[in-house]
């Protein structure tokens, strides 16, 4: 048994009270024991913080034995509303069919990291959710022991039933819940052995399934309230522009329109957090009785826009100030490409250097050099941005889809002039996140609108608003070089990567640590186009580029691409290059997924007509290797199958995790192959799904198989890791199938190749 102390040291018990109707409520709040590590992990992935946070679990036991388990984190499709309560239920020892799951509201006293970001929902709450269940189980046992006057050590708890074998007594959890609620929280409790898990590691269906297939209101956009008004916003048509004037009267008389006005989100002196980021600080608001009437009125509004000057803003990222410059002017995608290609040497920074790469390149018998790029992307969650607010004189209620309720609360408070404690934020199920709902400016907007209208308001973006007022995936560019000696050995590796406005480089990831002479450099280009986190930030480009380039190196050396990677990983494991522990990844776990995918895909015995590409990548503390199979049908490459091997530690809900793997694969193929947001004179050239191409049913692989490494390691990320590597596997398989290498996303623009 793992013993874990519940009170001493790092945790503080904060609440233990009986419910009015009888029952047990437990809430915990304790500091995470590995703060610095968490902060580092975040900083790497989504450029987040330096310090963090509390975490907790929460459950209610009814007197009939039904258990309500609160799911604290935002549900964006990663299935935490099922898998987080599963962890609590397993340690509680309750039958899953007696569990009811409720979405918790934002509560910074009870919970921490109520965030859907960094693939960290499960990993950051793992210990704490287990403890929440185990503590309750222990208290129920104690209550039974006291009632029956037997030693607590002789009481067992299985499937929601407490028993004492010697006396034959037994009772349901519900019968002991009231007594248990009056007990002190134990100083120390036992967690289950991994081998004794009965819910964790078993596939459980989505707790919202029935509601989803019958169309019940679940999402933010479904919120309805008595007297609720509908609002929508009008924003400048181009980045680099702002509002000059508008004619409210031109639409005020239209049917169902209540008011037309402007809102300014933040005052100049408000110190914004990075997640308060917004494309346009001043917006025109149209409020009316129904969505259609508001959308029609918006279209009819007469507005004049003018050019924005250059703006410098300071934003904080978990305590670190970042100065960001937004240049004046209307930007074009063509200029972006030119700027990325022709970066001046003064802007290039060395991020890591091992050995003497300059000499190795100078003395090389052969050098290969390849450049890769990708465009801006819009997140395009299927549910457009929306939120509900009801603001009264001294209180604000907000309800809707957000990935970061806690981080947005101070901004709402600031804009409304209402103290934090009077702001109540609740979360709905969310029609996708992908990072877009980390930036909750729409919460601030709807709060300001409700305050002004003195009424409950639901703000709804049109698809065009959503796509053209985005916080986009940056455009990236990377050039790789490899040096070979006369015996065709790889002697040096160089990557120079940059982006608008951030670099995609992870200097300490593979193949860093596996090559004696290694140089990683990065650069950035300023822009006034708003960008931010998009599923697996930076990895979502650099993985595909790096894995495509490694494929070319292997080919150059005449080696099997898996064998070649395994050789590098062997070096990194046995004799790593660089400072001790400077390499981010565990080379053995990395090799493990490659070996697993090699076995499961039957790599060495591809069937006739099947062209295969492989890729493997580490991010969010997890390891993913994928083999993608293409078959040519009528001269068109068709993705027949993808085999994925994943090491994400203990898998809580295997079928749901497989679903995420399948989604990551399809999402990755889709974005590498088809998607892109381009700009002309500051305006996005795509504003809806007629011109912005997302992958569709026919283009998805026919079959996706996912295999998990059996592991006793605590869970690591799962939402993001399957997404980045597939882009490399796709490019490598396309090369085998067509003879053409693909360097610039979306690949469909390089040549019309896939049907």
């Amino acid at each position, binding site marked *: 048994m793992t013993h874990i102390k519940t009170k001493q040291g790092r945790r503080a018990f904060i609440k233990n009270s009986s419910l009015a109707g009888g029952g047990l409520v437990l809430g915990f709040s304790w500091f995470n024991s590995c703060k610095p590590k968490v902060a580092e992990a975040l900083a790497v992935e989504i450029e987040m913080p330096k310090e963090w946070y509390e975490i907790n679990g929460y459950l209610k036991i009814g007197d009939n034995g039904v258990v309500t388990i609160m799911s604290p984190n935002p549900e964006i499709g990663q299935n935490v509303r099922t898998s987080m309560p599963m962890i609590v239920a397993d340690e509680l020892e309750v039958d899953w069919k007696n569990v009811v799951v409720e979405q918790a509201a934002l509560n910074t006293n009870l919970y921490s990291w109520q965030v859907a970001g960094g693939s960290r929902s499960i990993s950051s709450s793992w210990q704490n959710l287990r403890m929440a269940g185990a503590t309750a189980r222990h208290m129920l046992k104690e209550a039974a022991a006291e009632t029956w006057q037997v030693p607590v050590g002789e009481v067992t708890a299985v499937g929601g039933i407490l028993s004492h074998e010697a006396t034959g007594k037994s009772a349901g959890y519900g019968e002991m819940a009231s007594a248990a609620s009056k007990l002190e929280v134990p100083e120390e409790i036992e967690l289950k052995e991994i081998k004794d898990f009965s819910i964790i590691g078993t596939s459980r269906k*989505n707790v919202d399934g029935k509601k989803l297939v019958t169309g019940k209101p679940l999402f933010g956009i479904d919120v309805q309230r008595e007297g609720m008004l509908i609002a929508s916003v009008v924003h400048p048509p181009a980045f680099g522009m702002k509002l000059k004037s508008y004619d409210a009267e031109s639409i005020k008389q239209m049917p169902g329109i209540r008011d037309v006005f402007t809102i300014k989100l933040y005052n100049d002196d408000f110190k914004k957090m990075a997640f308060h980021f917004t494309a346009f600080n001043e917006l025109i608001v149209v409020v009316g009785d129904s969505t259609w009437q508001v959308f029609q009125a918006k279209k009819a509004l007469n507005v004049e826009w003018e050019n924005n000057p250059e703006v410098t803003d300071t934003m904080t990222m978990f305590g670190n100030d970042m100065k960001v410059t937004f240049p004046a002017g209307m930007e074009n995608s063509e200029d972006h490409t030119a700027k990325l290609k022709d970066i001046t040497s003064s802007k290039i920074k060395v991020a890591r250097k091992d050995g003497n790469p300059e000499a190795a390149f100078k003395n090389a018998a052969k050098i290969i050099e390849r450049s890769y790029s990708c465009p801006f992307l819009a997140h395009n969650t299927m549910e457009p941005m929306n939120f509900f607010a009801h603001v009264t004189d001294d209180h604000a209620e907000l309800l809707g889809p957000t990935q970061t309720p806690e981080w947005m609360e101070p901004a709402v408070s600031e804009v409304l002039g209402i103290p934090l404690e009077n702001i109540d934020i609740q979360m709905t199920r969310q029609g996708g996140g992908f990072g877009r709902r980390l930036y909750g400016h729409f919460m601030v907007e709807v709060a300001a609108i409700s305050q002004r209208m003195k009424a409950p308001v639901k703000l709804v973006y049109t698809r065009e608003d959503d796509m053209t007022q985005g916080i986009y995936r940056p455009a990236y560019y990377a050039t790789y070089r490899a040096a070979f000696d006369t015996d065709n050995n790889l002697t040096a590796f160089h990557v120079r990567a940059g982006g608008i406005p951030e670099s995609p480089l992870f200097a300490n990831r593979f193949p860093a640590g596996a090559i004696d002479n290694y140089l990683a450099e990065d650069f950035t280009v300023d822009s006034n186009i708003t960008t931010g986190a998009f599923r697996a930030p930076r990895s979502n480009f650099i993985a595909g580029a790096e894995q495509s380039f490694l494929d070319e190196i292997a080919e150059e050396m005449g080696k099997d691409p898996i064998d070649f990677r395994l050789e590098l990983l062997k070096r990194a494991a046995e004799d790593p290059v660089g400072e001790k522990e400077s390499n981010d990844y565990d080379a053995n776990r990395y090799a493990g997924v490659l070996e697993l995918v090699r076995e499961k895909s039957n790599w060495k015995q591809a069937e006739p007509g099947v062209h295969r590409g492989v890729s493997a990548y580490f991010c969010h503390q997890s390891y993913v290797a994928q083999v993608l199979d293409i078959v040519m049908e009528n001269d068109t490459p068709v993705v027949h199958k993808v085999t994925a091997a994943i090491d994400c530690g203990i898998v809580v809900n295997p079928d749901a995790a497989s679903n995420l793997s399948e989604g990551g694969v*399809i999402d990755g193929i889709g974005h590498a192959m088809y998607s892109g947001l381009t700009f002309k004179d500051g305006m996005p050239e795509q504003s*809806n799904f007629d011109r912005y191409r997302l992958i569709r049913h026919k283009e998805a692989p026919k079959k996706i198989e996912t295999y998990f490494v059996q592991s006793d390691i605590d869970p690591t990320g799962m939402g993001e890791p399957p997404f980045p590597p597939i882009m490399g596997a796709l490019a490598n398989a396309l090369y085998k199938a067509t003879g053409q290498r693909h360097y610039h996303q979306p690949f469909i623009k390089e040549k019309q190749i896939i049907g």
Partner: protein
Amino acid sequence: MATFSIHINGSTKNIDVDPSTPMLWVLRDHFNLVGTKFGCGIAQCGACTVHLGENAVRSCQLPISAVGEQHITTIEGLSENGDHPVQQAWLEVDVYQCGYCQAGQIMTASALLKKNPNPTEEEIEGAMNGNICRCGTYTRIKKAVKKAAEINQNT
């Protein structure tokens, strides 16, 4: 504004709206049937799919004035107890990730199976191609459509 009498999910509802109002917004804002989803507003994503008679149509491009006497079925009216074979199959396969597009997927799939009870893989792909799933559940959608066809044949 004009008054319309709409046959929906087995009953008749009266409503006074502008004749150009798309059924999507009549359903969502006026009838409180929010299972039909707004995705794009231009019939490109399929999130708003309903049945008009026996056909799957995009309700965002269906003005209320064009409905007339035809019957509309939404996800809420697909079955009384949420046990239509397609709904059963979706539950069994556990298709969804975020779930937002799935009502539209289910309405498209159920219209397909009504006309073609035993579709081939290609026919499924063709019928479902107009419904975008941003989370990428396409392989599960296909599996669930096949499963629904099986359930149909066994009942």
